């Protein structure tokens, strides 16, 4: 059913990179919820998105993973773009 019987499990040698990505994701998430200003939250959200993209790529090395990581990154960027544009009143304002 799933792809997981075709691809190898992550080997034990690259674990430190995965841990660094996880720790940075948690740190940036805590910075997101403790920041008061609504626009200054968006750079920290971008750090969360980078770290999760790294986690996705490091968890499952398979050629389709590149498309998954790029799709997640572009989707998250588009979401931030839409939030910032609406906050600035770029698109919808009469």
């Amino acid at each position: 059913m799933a792809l997981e019987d075709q691809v190898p499990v992550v080997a034990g040698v690259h674990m430190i990179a995965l841990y660094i990505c996880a720790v940075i994701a948690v740190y940036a998430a805590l910075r997101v919820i403790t920041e008061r200003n609504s626009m200054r939250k968006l750079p920290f959200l971008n750090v969360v998105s980078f770290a999760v993209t790294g986690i996705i790529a490091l968890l499952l090395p398979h050629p389709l993973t590149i498309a998954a990581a790029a799709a997640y990154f572009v989707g998250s960027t588009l979401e931030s773009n839409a939030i910032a544009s609406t906050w600035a009143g770029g698109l919808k304002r009469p």
Partner: protein
Amino acid sequence: MLDEPIRILIAALICWFNFMIIDLIFKLPERGGVSGATAIAQEVEKGGGKLNGGYMMGNIVSSPDASAGTLLAGCGVYCAGLPGGLFAALLVYIGNRICYDPGYAGTTGCITATFIVYGAVQSGWFAASDFIAGMVIAILTIQGLSSVHASRLIAWLWKIRCRLLRGCT
């Protein structure tokens, strides 16, 4: 091969210089590309930072630029070798077109980062996963630690670039 933490730190330095040089050459700190980037820059300036640094932070947030290209090139080389990196460059170009951006900085950064990562892996000194963790650390120093100090640093680098290349107004 060196130990893994030292390799990750060296890879973080390489990635930092790669995306910062390409972003400065393609004039990201000059103006905000979309209206959301301009709003982020104004809020950063209101919090005590510089306006040019805020423009670059807003551009990184609201469209995939050279930093995203470096990260996805690392992912591509880690998963599928050299063709994976070039495929990631194509995906970065498509993502730039989705986000209303010309997309030259992201594609150029992705292609150069692909060759850098592939050369470093072929030389036997690095693994491709070091560059993914290194890019996450590098984007943490720009966006994640302190927006005031990061914007002042980018404004200082932008002033140096204006003095060297004089393409900016």
